[in-house]
């Protein structure tokens, strides 16, 4: 299991567009990606659940990759967060 912490910089938080892109990106990976905030946890491939977390600008989330190519996945997703959120 690999994970990283990230503080959201996008002023709208995790809104529809990046959540959609994230779900697409995650579905192409072998490992399972989860996003955790304040004890709540969702699978990053579930668009509506991710949006439903209401993650705002300035919130810090923990992103975890488990299974398959977790090493590679966690790096890729970290880059995704840097670029889109």
């Amino acid at each position, binding site marked *: 299991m690999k994970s990283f912490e990230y503080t959201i910089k996008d002023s*709208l*938080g995790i*809104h*529809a567009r990046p959540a959609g892109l994230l779900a697409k990106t995650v579905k192409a990976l072998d490992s399972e990606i989860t996003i955790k905030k304040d004890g709540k946890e969702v699978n990053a491939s*579930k*668009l*509506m659940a991710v*949006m*439903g977390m209401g993650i705002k600008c300035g919130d810090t989330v923990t992103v975890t990759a488990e299974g398959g190519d977790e090493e590679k996945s966690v790096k890729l997703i970290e880059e995704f967060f840097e670029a889109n959120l």
Partner: protein
Amino acid sequence: MTRYSGKGVFGAVAIGKISVFTRSDVKVKRVKADDASAELMRLKEAEKKAREQLGRIYEKALKEVGEANAQIFDIHIMMIEDEDYNEAITEMICGQGVNAEYAVAVTGDNFAEMFSSMDDSYMQARAADVKDISNRIIACLSDKGAVSVNIDDKVIICADDLAPSETVSLDKDKVLAFVTAYGSSNSHTAILARTMNIPAIIGVGAEFLSQIKNGDIAVADGYSGELIIDPDAETIAAAEKRQAEDAEKKQLLRKLKGKENITLDGKRVNIYANIESADSIGSVILNDAGGIGLFRSEFLYLESTDYPTEEKQFKVYKRVLESMGGKRVIIRTLDVGADKQVPYFKLEREENPALGLRAVRLCLDRPDIFRTQLRALYRASVYGSLGIMFPMITNLWELEECIELCGKVKAELDADGIAYSDNIELGIMIETPAAALISDKLAPLVDFFSIGTNDLTQYTLACDRQNPRTERFCDTHHEAVMKLIEMTVENAHKHGVWAGICGELAADTSLTEKFLRMGIDELSVSPPFVLKVRDAVRNIDLNK
């Protein structure tokens, strides 16, 4: 004649017949369905159809409103594919033995409810997206096909609200305007209307729909946000006049867009735009301005309830610089005073605010506020071609202090390992007679001057421009003002500095030739005037 008012989201005027938009109302009934696998099969088929429809809408939107606005339909497709959403529907079909329509409707409502109960207005607005996709699936289940309107004539579409997919699905050539009872200026429909150049009025209130009918003649004024039913001859004439002016502007645009700002004898001048907020960039680009000659940073402070953070400012400056794609962007540092009150600044009341602690004086008095803005500007500078401009300079030492502060900010950023551009231009507003008179001393310290003719006129002629009683004493073409402008340009050029005008006189085409003869390098005007000034420049012959 009846008037309804809402909020105009795209400035243009439409005159025409009303068409009340009604959805092919799909009533969903709970029906017992014993064969769950047959219902699941129907659901699958309907979802496939819905996705195909959305794919076509996406393509249409891509062509008409661009990728950024089309993306929402891609997201709709993904929402239809969402695991949790499908699981909930499937569970209802299998567990409760209900028909697919009912399961989709209930699930859609539940998810919409989840969004609308969130404490974030952006997420609340997403409830509409969930309802939109659910209705689409239900329409596909009942084989109604796509929601569509058949319009024969050009009409003003009136609706309670329009889903983004409904807005895009309408035949653009037949829509004169959109008027909706609800909606916010951030809704997709408002954004799409702006992109499609269709006048739109939102938030008119629910009652208007019951008082209008198909075929009513109306004027929809996207400038004022008014919908006027059954207008009298005078109102129609005014609306037609406005349309003619818009048409003239459009024609000017077609004729002059992409053309150079060059006189008949070959002298070039830069024509830039003045803007108040980052939202006006679209209009800057539309009107083909060569850059931004004055970006008033005040709005960042005025619209805020506390000092805007460095991060917030940085984002706005970055966005403006990026949007202008390397073209020059001149950002004026904070220009407020006791006349433009910002409550949290807690400025003391002044007897004479125009002559008081304002603009750069206030910034030098409160260097911490100034420093935050300068840091944000320097950090953003790597994203384009930035000029920083200080307003209301009267003394040489003020400019020296500003430059010193810039040096400190650069040193701080160096220490933090944060990048900034080496090509930032520093300049000042020449808007006091004092600055014009010592422009020979100021020029060696800057890269440019921008003459703010509004304040320069006011301070030179000792006339408040807002006071109607002094109007006849306030001659904006006064020789004294012209002499100060000429002197400023001359002193700028002696020191290899460029000089522009960013006040209202820059758009006064009766003076364009005079300014060009003085050697002015740039005229910065509000976006709708860019092409008018270009037209004037292209008809001037300085050899004559």
